[in-house]
């Protein structure tokens, strides 16, 4: 490409950037006083918000320190979650009880043990499964809104889809608990479980009991909750495809589906970003999941097994965590959740708005 064309584009970009060409208010002496005061107030507001985030993270880290000291990094890979002490009677090699000088059995006290692996597993599997269910619906709905729906219906249908996001999550939880879980338990899970038993390669997916309150139900509820987010962002991302691209592919003889596929490929980083945003919501969702996940701190392969996610563990146990170590362990789980959400959101933002999006716009 000739050098001149690139430089014109970059000049246009600079001119379009916010703040360019406007005078930036100055905080230095000599500037108009009311302007300076208002500028100072605006700066303080921004600083306060940043300070809140820093305070949140540092309080979490400080309160979780006892757990760091006791368990170390192996906290993330152990799977026992026992808040109480256990008294084990010591036995010798033959299994006979060892008695001390007074004739009392010698007991060994096992301290409480905490490990976050089951909840990390639960969060990972429910989020992944919910995306697996939600993404086809969301991308399909976005394609419908951009490519098929008559213009006068687009706003109404968009509103209906986004309305799903406005429903409080506790309502989803109650619906899941009283409607979806019994339905799954009575009709869906026994049949699917039987199918898994029959197919020899899928035995590991079958579960010994199906209560309806398990990973599968939680994933379905989460899928319904993330569909509006992924649809809204995908729709906006697909809208940025320039009409020259669409006209070009059609001119080359592409069918409707081939053109749509090219559009999806064009925006793929933005679509990944939308999916990451959905993942961030699914991973952090608390009340809806806590009501339908079954609340069992164990790792099982089957989607019909009860599990626990990081947020549902905190919702269930934090209010009454009486020992300091228990509370510290819970806060370490909260920190892990915070770190995960931060990573998802940063990556999503980069993909949708930042470098990934810009590359998609300029690179093809």
């Amino acid at each position, binding site marked *: 490409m000739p050098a001149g064309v690139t430089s014109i584009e970059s000049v246009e970009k600079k001119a379009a950037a916010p703040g360019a060409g406007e005078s930036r208010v100055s905080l230095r002496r000599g500037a108009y006083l009311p302007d300076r005061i208002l500028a100072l107030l605006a700066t303080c507001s921004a600083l306060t918000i940043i300070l809140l985030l820093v305070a949140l993270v540092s309080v979490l880290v400080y309160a979780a320190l006892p757990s760091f000291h006791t368990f170390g990094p192996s906290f993330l890979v152990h799977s*026992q*979650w*026992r*808040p*109480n*002490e*256990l*008294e*084990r*009677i010591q036995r010798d090699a033959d299994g006979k009880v060892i008695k001390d000088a007074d004739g009392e059995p010698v007991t060994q006290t096992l301290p409480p043990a905490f490990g976050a692996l089951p909840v990390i597993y639960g969060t990972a599997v429910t989020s992944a499964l919910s995306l697996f269910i939600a993404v086809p619906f969301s991308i399909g709905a976005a394609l419908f809104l951009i490519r098929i729906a008559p213009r006068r219906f687009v706003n109404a249908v968009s509103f209906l889809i986004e309305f799903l996001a406005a429903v409080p999550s506790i309502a989803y939880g109650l619906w899941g*608990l009283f409607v979806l*879980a*019994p339905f799954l*338990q009575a009709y869906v899970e026994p049949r699917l479980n039987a199918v898994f038993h029959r197919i020899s390669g899928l035995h590991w997916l079958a579960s*010994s*009991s199906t*209560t*309806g*309150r398990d990973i599968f139900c939680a994933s379905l509820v989460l899928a319904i909750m993330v569909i509006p987010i992924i649809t809204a962002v995908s729709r906006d991302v697909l809208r940025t495809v320039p009409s020259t691209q669409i006209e070009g592919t059609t001119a080359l003889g592409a069918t409707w589906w081939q053109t749509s596929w090219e559009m999806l490929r064009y925006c793929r980083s933005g679509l990944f970003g939308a999916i990451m945003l959905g993942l961030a919501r699914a991973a952090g969702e608390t009340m809806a999941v806590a009501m339908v996940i*079954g*609340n*069992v*701190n*164990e790792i099982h392969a089957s989607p019909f097994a*009860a599990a626990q996610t990081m947020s549902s563990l905190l919702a*269930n*146990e934090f*209010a*009454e*965590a*009486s*020992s300091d170590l228990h509370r510290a362990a819970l806060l370490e789980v909260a920190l892990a959740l915070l770190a995960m959400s931060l990573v998802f959101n940063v990556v999503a933002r980069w993909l949708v708005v930042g470098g990934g999006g810009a590359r998609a716009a300029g690179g093809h």
Partner: protein
Amino acid sequence: MKGLIRNIAAIVALGGSVALAEVRLQGAGSTFVAPMMQRWVSEYQKLRPDVQADYQSIGSGGGVKAFLEKTVDFGASDAPLNKKEFAQAGGVSAVVQVPVIAGAVVPGYNLPGFNGELKLDGPVLANIFQGRIAKWNDPKIAALNAGLSLPDLAITPAHRTDGSGTTFVFTSYLATQSVDFKERIGASKQVEWPGGSGGKGNEGVTQVVESTPGAIGYIELAYALENKIPFATMKNADGKFVKASPKSTSAAGEQAAAQMDANNAAPLWNQHGANVYPIAGFTYVFVRSDLSYMHDKAKAQAVAAFLTWVIHDGQQFASQLDYAPLSAAVQTRAGQAIGRLNWSGAPIATASR
């Protein structure tokens, strides 16, 4: 416009009239005792309209924590305070701990199509909750229920996810029945249950049992009767099968006064006697013995009066709600403990009016 102003004035007046109570008492804790506590609160308000007590059913663990942090005036828990908790409160003399009612923990089950009386004993129940007995038609269960046909259904044990005094009573009983249970799971307000399904509060476990065919969960007797959940008859320490009721729970409480420790705590589970129900426990209420931290003498007097009324006149409502009233010996001891309540050393009048 005039009508609107009139309506707003009426609402404000109504709101104002609710706040007539001079003294507000705040309690929190055990869901085990929640139905009884709510009844006590409403009956006591009829007696003394100037005292409004409020009880939050958040679980025994939460009640202990709120009491230690002084965010409530009295805490309720089915598990008595342990050494560490007494130390946190400032020592055993800084706390007045009294039993206020006795209740039964029953294994409620959901077996569609089963209409008989299910019988269970301690070791079998321990194995069920450890996941060792996985189906209802297991020979060990069938051995106790000769002549009844049990379905080929998977057992889902329902447990508490929160810090629970009901769990404390249930696991303490099972720990006396099975050494393996004591060593693998232990007796505490919050334990690591293998498998099953979790619920928050007695209400949560009730909901799990109601909605899951094949579930068995440990709940307080009042919740089982209120929600019409069938529960098993348990074999007691004398080998007799006893169904939970206020009478069989009172029978468990008869030995209690003799077994009480210095802090008025006594285990009610696994007691001897022909008609004794084996899984029973007291609910304890704790208050600080020196109530001057409240900075409100009327409130301190109301706490003392309320507690005195609860352990004496309040017991008449117990059997209506399927709890067991305290025996006379226990009432005497509790009354002595309440007599220790003081305001910076000066005793507080404990008359209930």
